[in-house]
C-alpha cells in the first residue's frame, strides 16, 4: 500500500464511516469492558452523585444509582449498541435505517449536539471552579465560585479542549490512556480519604442535602435522574460497539463497564456530598488529603475535564460532519470543532446557571433519548427483525431505498415528539408535577414504550405497506443466526 493510500485509510478510520472488516473489530469483551469503564469514570460522575443525594440519603442514593442506571443503560444499550455492532458501522450511519439521512442530521443537531454542548460547558465550568479552588487553598486567594475568573478559566479549558480535539482521535486516545487509569486511582484515593476521615455510620446517618417534603417523590426523582444519566451514554456507545465481534461481546461489557465505572465514581460523589456538603472534590481534597496530594489530585481532575470535553466533542463533531455532509462537509475539521465550542463558551459566562440547572438539563436530555431509543428498538427489532441492508446505508439519490420522505422518516420524528410530550405528561422536571404512576415506573420507561408503540403502526402505514424504507429488502445478513 502506498503512503497516500495509507493516509486515506487512516483518514477513513478517524473521520469516515466505512463498515469494518472482521479483522478491524479489535475489541474483545475484556477490552470493551475496560474502555466502557474508562469513559464512565469521568469528572461529571461526581456531580451526578452529588445531585442524587440532594434528594435522598446514602442508602436511597445507592438504590437509585442501581435501579436508575440498570434501567437507563439497559434502554440505551438496546437503542444504540446492537444496531452498530451487528453492521460494524458507525452509529449515525447505521441510524439512517431508522430516521433517514436527513432525519439523522436533525437528531444529531437538535438532540445530540445540544446535549453534548451542555455537558461540555458544564465541564468547562468544573475546570474553572477546580482551578480557582486550588488558587484559594494553595495561595490564600478568595476567588468566587461563580465569578469572572471561573468564566475565564472555563473558556481556557474549552480552548485547550479545542486544541486537543482539532488534532484528532489519536491525540485524544493517547491522553485518555493516562487520564482514565489516573482518575480511577484518584477516585479510589478519594473514597479511602473520606472513609478514614469519617465513619460509615456518619455516611449512613447523613441527611439528604435539599429534599422535598414527599420522600417517595424524592426517591422517584433520584431514580429518574439516574435513568437519564444511564441514557446519556447513547450518543457514543454504538460507534464504540462496532469494534466488537459479537452482540454478547458488546452487550455485557457495555453494561458492566459503564455500570462499574459509574457506581465507583458516583458513590464517591455521593459520599463527599453527604459528608462534606460538596460533591466536587475540588472543595475538600486539599484540607482532607493535605497540600501535596490534594493539589496534585486537583490538577489532574481539572485536566481530566479538558480531555472529557475533547472526547465528547470528537464523537459529536464526527456525527455532525458525517450526517450533514452537504452543509459542513467542506469545512476543515478544526473549524468544525471551533463551531462546536461556541455554545459551551457562551454558557461558560453563566457558571451558576449551569450548576443550578444541571439536574433539569440531564433529565430533559433523558426524555428525548428515551423516546429516540423507543423508536430505534421498534424499528430494528420489530419492523426490520435485525436485518438492515448494509449497502443501502451508503446509497444516495433515487437509488437510496432508505429515502423515506425527502430523507426523513416522518413516523420516527412524530413518535419522538409524542414520546417526549408523554414524558412531560408523566413527569415535568421544571414544575415537578408528576402522575402517581411516576413513582412506580419512572417517566423514561413509559416514554420508551409509548414512542415505540406510536412508531410501529405509523411506520407500517406510511412506509412498510407502501414498500418504502427498505423494510422488505433481503439483507445479506438476514439468514445468519449464529450468536456472537
Amino acid at each position, binding site marked *: 500500500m502506498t503512503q497516500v493510500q495509507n493516509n486515506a485509510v487512516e483518514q*477513513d478510520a478517524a473521520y469516515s464511516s466505512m463498515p469494518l472488516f472482521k479483522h478491524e473489530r479489535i475489541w474483545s469483551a475484556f477490552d470493551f469492558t475496560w474502555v466502557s469503564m474508562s469513559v464512565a469514570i469521568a469528572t461529571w460522575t461526581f456531580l451526578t452523585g452529588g445531585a442524587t443525594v440532594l434528594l435522598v440519603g446514602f*442508602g436511597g442514593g445507592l438504590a437509585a444509582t*442501581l*435501579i436508575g442506571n*440498570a434501567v437507563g443503560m439497559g434502554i440505551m444499550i438496546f437503542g444504540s449498541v446492537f444496531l452498530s455492532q451487528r453492521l460494524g458501522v458507525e452509529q449515525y450511519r447505521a441510524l439512517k435505517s431508522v430516521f433517514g439521512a436527513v432525519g439523522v442530521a436533525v437528531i444529531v443537531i437538535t438532540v445530540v449536539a445540544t446535549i453534548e454542548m451542555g455537558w461540555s460547558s458544564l465541564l468547562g465550568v468544573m475546570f474553572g471552579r477546580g482551578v480557582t479552588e486550588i488558587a484559594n487553598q494553595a495561595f490564600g486567594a478568595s476567588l468566587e465560585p461563580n465569578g469572572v475568573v471561573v468564566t475565564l478559566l472555563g473558556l481556557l479549558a474549552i480552548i485547550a479542549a479545542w486544541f486537543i480535539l482539532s488534532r484528532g482521535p489519536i491525540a485524544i486516545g493517547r491522553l485518555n490512556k493516562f487520564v482514565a487509569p489516573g482518575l480511577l486511582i484518584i477516585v479510589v484515593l478519594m473514597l479511602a480519604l473520606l472513609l478514614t476521615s469519617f465513619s460509615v455510620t456518619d455516611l449512613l446517618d447523613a441527611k439528604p442535602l435539599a429534599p422535598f417534603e414527599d420522600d417517595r417523590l424524592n426517591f422517584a426523582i433520584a431514580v429518574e435522574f439516574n435513568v437519564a444519566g444511564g441514557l446519556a451514554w447513547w450518543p457514543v456507545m454504538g460507534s464504540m460497539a462496532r469494534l466488537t*465481534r459479537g452482540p454478547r461481546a458488546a452487550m455485557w461489557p457495555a453494561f458492566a463497564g459503564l455500570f462499574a465505572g459509574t457506581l465507583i465514581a458516583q458513590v464517591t460523589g455521593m459520599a463527599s456530598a453527604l459528608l462534606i456538603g460538596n460533591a466536587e472534590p475540588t472543595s475538600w481534597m486539599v484540607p482532607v488529603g493535605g497540600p501535596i496530594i490534594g493539589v496534585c489530585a486537583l490538577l489532574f481532575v481539572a485536566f481530566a475535564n479538558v480531555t472529557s470535553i475533547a472526547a465528547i466533542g470528537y464523537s459529536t463533531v464526527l456525527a455532525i460532519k458525517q450526517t450533514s455532509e452537504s452543509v459542513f462537509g467542506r469545512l476543515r475539521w478544526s473549524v468544525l470543532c471551533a463551531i462546536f465550542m461556541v455554545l459551551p463558551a457562551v454558557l461558560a459566562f453563566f457558571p451558576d446557571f449551569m450548576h443550578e440547572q444541571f439536574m433539569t438539563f440531564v433529565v430533559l436530555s433523558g426524555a428525548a433519548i428515551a423516546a429516540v431509543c423507543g423508536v430505534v428498538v421498534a424499528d430494528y427489532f420489530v419492523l426490520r427483525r435485525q436485518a438492515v441492508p448494509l449497502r443501502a446505508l451508503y446509497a444516495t439519490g433515487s437509488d437510496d431505498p432508505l429515502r423515506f420522505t425527502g430523507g426523513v422518516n416522518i413516523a420516527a420524528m412524530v413518535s419522538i415528539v409524542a414520546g417526549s410530550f408523554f414524558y412531560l405528561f408523566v413527569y415535568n422536571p421544571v414544575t415537578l408535577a408528576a402522575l402517581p404512576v411516576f413513582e412506580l415506573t419512572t417517566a423514561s420507561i413509559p416514554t420508551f414504550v409509548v414512542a415505540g408503540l406510536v412508531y410501529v403502526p405509523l411506520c407500517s402505514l406510511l412506509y412498510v405497506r407502501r414498500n418504502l424504507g427498505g423494510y422488505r429488502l433481503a439483507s445479506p445478513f438476514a439468514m445468519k443466526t449464529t450468536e456472537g
Partner: protein
Amino acid sequence: MTSTNSEWRQRLDERLELIERDEADDPVHAPLTWRSVVSFVAALTTLCIIGALAVSL
C-alpha cells in the same frame, strides 16, 4: 479529507464486497438471540430488585 468522493466510493464498494464474501465464510454479523435478550433483561431486573430491597431495608 485527502481522498475525493469517487475514490472514497470505490474503496467503499471494495470494502462492502470483501465484507460480504468474508461473511459467507465466517459469519460475524450475528443477530441478537431471544435467549440473550431474556438473560440481559433478567440481570437488569435483578439489579432493580436489589436496589428496591436496599431502599426498603
